[in-house]
């Protein structure tokens, strides 16, 4: 299991397009991937779970992956968030 923290800096947080991009990207990996906000876990492959996390700009969240491609999954998602989904 691998996990890493990252600050969400894009203005809309995990809304709309960024949420879609995050879920689509996460779904490409075999590992189970969670977003952790204030100790609660949200399934990063579920659009409703990600939106339900209500992560806004400025939040620090954890990305945690467990599976065969866990390292690559965490690295890809953290980079995606750092680059503000561009």
């Amino acid at each position, binding site marked *: 299991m691998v996990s890493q923290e990252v600050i969400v800096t894009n*203005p809309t947080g995990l809304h*709309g397009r*960024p949420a*879609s991009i995050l*879920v689509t990207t996460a779904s490409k990996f075999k590992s189970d991937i969670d977003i952790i906000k204030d100790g609660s876990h949200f*399934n990063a492959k*579920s*659009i*409703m779970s990600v939106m*339900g996390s209500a992560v806004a700009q400025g939040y620090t969240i954890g990305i945690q992956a467990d599976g065969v491609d866990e390292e690559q999954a965490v690295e890809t998602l953290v980079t995606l968030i750092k680059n503000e989904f561009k």
Partner: protein
Amino acid sequence: MEKIGIIASPGIAIAKAFVYEKVEAVVIKKQINDIDAEVEKLKIAIKKSKKELEAIYEKAKIDLGEEDASIFQAHVLILNDPEFVDAMISEIRNSVVNAEFAVKSITDNFYTMFAAMEDPYFAARSADIRDVGTRVLNNVMGIENLDLSSFSENTIIIAKDLAPSDTAQMDKAHVVGFATNIGSRTSHTAIMARSLEIPAVLGLSDILETTKTGEMVIVDGIEGKVIVKPTEDELKAYTAKQVKYLDYVATLSQLKDLPAETTDGHRIEICGNIGSPNDLEGVHKNGGEGVGLYRTEFLYMNSDSMPDEEKQFEAYKKVIESFGERSVIIRTLDIGGDKKLPYLPLKEEMNPFLGFRAIRLCFREKEMFKTQLRAILRASVFGKARIMFPMISSVMEVRQAKAIVQECMAQLDAEGIVYDQNIEIGVMIEIPSAAITSDIIVKEVDFFSIGTNDLCQYTLAVDRMNQEVSYLYNPLNPAILRLVKMVIDASHTHPDKFTGMCGEMAGDPSATLILLGLGLDEFSMSASAIPQVKKMIRSVSFKQAQDIANTALKLETGEAVAEMVKTKISDLGIKIV
């Protein structure tokens, strides 16, 4: 069978009906024996729903562009959501219930959860979840998902009302008319019909219940009638009327390059209202001389995040450049009321139309406001831009807004960025207090533009969307005519100042002669209304129009004014369709 309704968009359409009625599926909870069969049933329905949505998405991408089509991609994403789908499967397995019940209860759960969220963006997503859930449910139960996205022949849509989600995926090449149970001139269906330039008659109360798919229908957007199953004679008569109307539209288009000038040489300016650079073509095509209202809120509403200065600059520049020396009036952000931004959460209000909106909101979100003003100022060197502030209620607000423009100018000066130093600044007159104090406000501005939709709503205390009271909504009401006169007269106390109008009234040919006679300097309207208003103006002398305006001011009711104008127009031999 003939029915009378509200004219929302002119023209004659003759085609087969498509009855767009959303059937509410009745779901009954049942205990089941074969769990695996029920799960399989659900999976097949989900697969079918996905296929439908992907097809709609592909079509929407071509018809509407990537941005507007992305809503359907979001729907596919919801269907691919393991939490959503697994919850349905677990519901079947754990509660041993039928698939339709599982779909309904899980959809309802998620819907309630999202609808209850404080953030308006998430709350709005609840509608997407319900749309997707309904699609799956219909597929489980074998109810056809009605789809407006593909017709093989010309079709008239019959509905209760049409929502943006209905028209987004509509087959625009084959839909030739609308007839609906409810709606008004300013509802979504009406605006859509006018922008597609197809006839629409709304407010027919029971057209949905009395028409069947495949029946022949005539939509008469000239007299406000709909005929279901016309007789041979009626068909013949309306085919002739349709040809005559198209001829009339063709003669109007010959006016395109002629000035909007009375027979005795009084010249006014006739402009188009636009929501984005995409609307420019229509304004040019119909002979608009400039833009009297650029609704910049669409730039914000069609975006996932706050549009930055660069993005705004590009849009404004495109519009300003396309009109060269002719004026483009840019209205600063008018959000709030019924218009919301996904990324700018606002509190729910008891009276949103009397609440925190437009300029009031811009004063609090000052950085957002300054970003827009900087973008407009930078773009102003590419032609003739004017700035207009919405929802002004007193001169204090004008001064405050102008001070912020000054701040932006000082910043641009410091950065060495050029802008039009003499850019003119004006205000919308849409609140009665601003109209009544227009003699005070005029000292601070270069022009007025009367927004009649809100001015009527606020002056007459009528919610124009409310069917129970919309009959009171009449721009020809003496109270409105007096306010309009007051505003025009106030601007004319200064030789270089002027009054325009950008509400629905400006594009209504039955009001043209009165407004002309009152001395209105600029008329701005949806592009398709331009030729007809121009024709009215070119048919009379200024003196005749002034006489009509003076007569109107002496009448006691809006109805009497409407009757008088109708008689005058017919006496003058002007044909309006």
